[in-house]
């Protein structure tokens, strides 16, 4: 089973992952599960059961130009920041914990959308355009 999860929070462009999920609704085969999660931390692992192919979408802040799309594989995630956590486990630690428990889906892709400092209600136009582009990328990737 394929599942696409948009990660985010209600703060400004950090909701871009949720927006991608909204834009994917109705555009993918019914058997593909779409989920939007608000900062799930380690509980993300509970969404990996019986999933063969997991696609994660999250806002990233790497210093690139806002709107840039980045495709990341779990192995590329920062391992030096192994203790990097906020309230909960950060995504890299959560994925390593999932791997350690043997529940990381065999295929796991992460798409990052570079966001700037927009923290107002709603998405910036740059993030909106990036979300639309990424939705099309995901449609092409799984169709």
């Amino acid at each position: 089973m394929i599942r696409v999860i948009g990660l985010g929070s209600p703060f400004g462009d950090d909701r871009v992952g949720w927006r991608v999920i909204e834009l994917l609704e109705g555009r993918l085969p019914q058997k593909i599960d779409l989920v939007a999660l608000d900062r799930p931390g380690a509980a993300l692992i509970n969404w990996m059961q019986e999933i063969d192919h997991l696609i994660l979408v999250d806002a990233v802040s790497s210093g690139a130009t806002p709107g840039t799309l980045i495709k990341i594989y779990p192995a590329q995630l920062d391992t030096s920041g192994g203790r990097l956590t906020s309230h909960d486990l950060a995504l890299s630690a959560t994925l390593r914990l999932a791997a350690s428990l043997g529940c990381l889906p065999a295929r796991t892709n992460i798409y990052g959308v570079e966001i700037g400092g927009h923290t107002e209600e709603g998405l910036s136009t740059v993030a909106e355009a990036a979300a639309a582009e990424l939705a099309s990328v995901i449609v092409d990737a799984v169709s």
Partner: protein
Amino acid sequence: MTERSVSIHVPAMTRVEGEGSLTLRIENDRIEELALDIFEPPRYFEKFLEGRRYHEVIDMVARICGICPIAYQMSAAQALENVFGIQPAQWVRDMRRVFYCGEWLQSHALHVHLLAAPDFLGFDSVVSMAEEHPDAVRRGLRLQGLGNDLIRLLGGRSVHPVGACVGGFFRAPEQAEVDRMLGQLRSAQPEAEELVTWAAALPMPDDQQAFINVSLRHDTDYPFAEGRIVSDDGLDIPVEEYEQHFAEEHRPQSTALFSALCGQPYLVGPLARLNLNVDRLPASSLALLEQSNIVFPSSNMFYSLFARALEIHIAIVEAIRLLEDYRLPSSPHLEVTPKAGIGFGATEAPRGLLWHRYEVDGDGLVKSARIVPPTSQNQARIEADLHRSLVNFGLQQPDDALRLRAETVIRNYDPCISCATHFLKLDVKRQ
């Protein structure tokens, strides 16, 4: 003279969570300076709330914390109902308790298994712990997921839930949803019992210390969303008298305010709750406590982990009890007519007492808000604990060992930077 200046710095965290740092200066084997700085988002929210309509408050305060949004919603709802002179129906009060059970479950399950347990089992993180203790980690994730499901039953979604309002809930769950939830809770109960036994057997430092415990106390039940504020040195006050007994002060190193009860640091949270409410435990939780051979009240701060484990059991037992009597209400909330005034609310967040005060005008607009979160109340206590714990541990210990002990002490309180303290950078200067 040897001077070792140790500063433990926690850089800014990802997303919106906290940031904090601990500065420690040791000279001639004495602590000359120890200052904990925790970044505290609620302070900014107090200003954001001014001028907002009362019903927006519930949604806005849920954003203060991704881990304990319900606590913020429940204290705010109670305070606003207090302004308007509303007493919610029994159904609402029961369902708020169930809602809260979900939050304790997910928050405590995360902290016990993923954040604190590695400290006591000798791992640097849960990722390495999972290789040797996969069953414990899986249990933590299952219980956390159960808590999220329980939150979703009443909140619509598990993080940043939207189901609560002033006067009650927007929607009452259908009986079939409640029955499904009951099934999940009943099958998790044996796992919670195992958890309590497991927590009691964890190797804990024997670290007795004197401190004042503060929590809510309810007439008959273990405290969640209702009660008077009590301490073990004789305080017993209604929620609205909080400001007459507790003072907050700014300290230069911190954006947070340090709270004191009559000038003294004090403890809020699971250990304080259990210390003050052993006689309010559900019978089956009390039986587990008695089997554990751990004596409560306890002055060993490290038994906070055990208290969290027992509170997971309490949350499951209480949610089952309340949902077994579930009936669809005629309406899930009271109609609210705003009126001018000042109101107070206090509930037990997973991390401890969370106190709110709102002043509202006749149109229902917030004129002022005050939010006192548990982490700032514990801040002075954490500093006092760090001071004596590090002295007891031995200030001559290497920096890495000091840092790990400091992290363990701080994390034990599960502050909003609990995991940020995993991130400590040690900067040593020697002369």
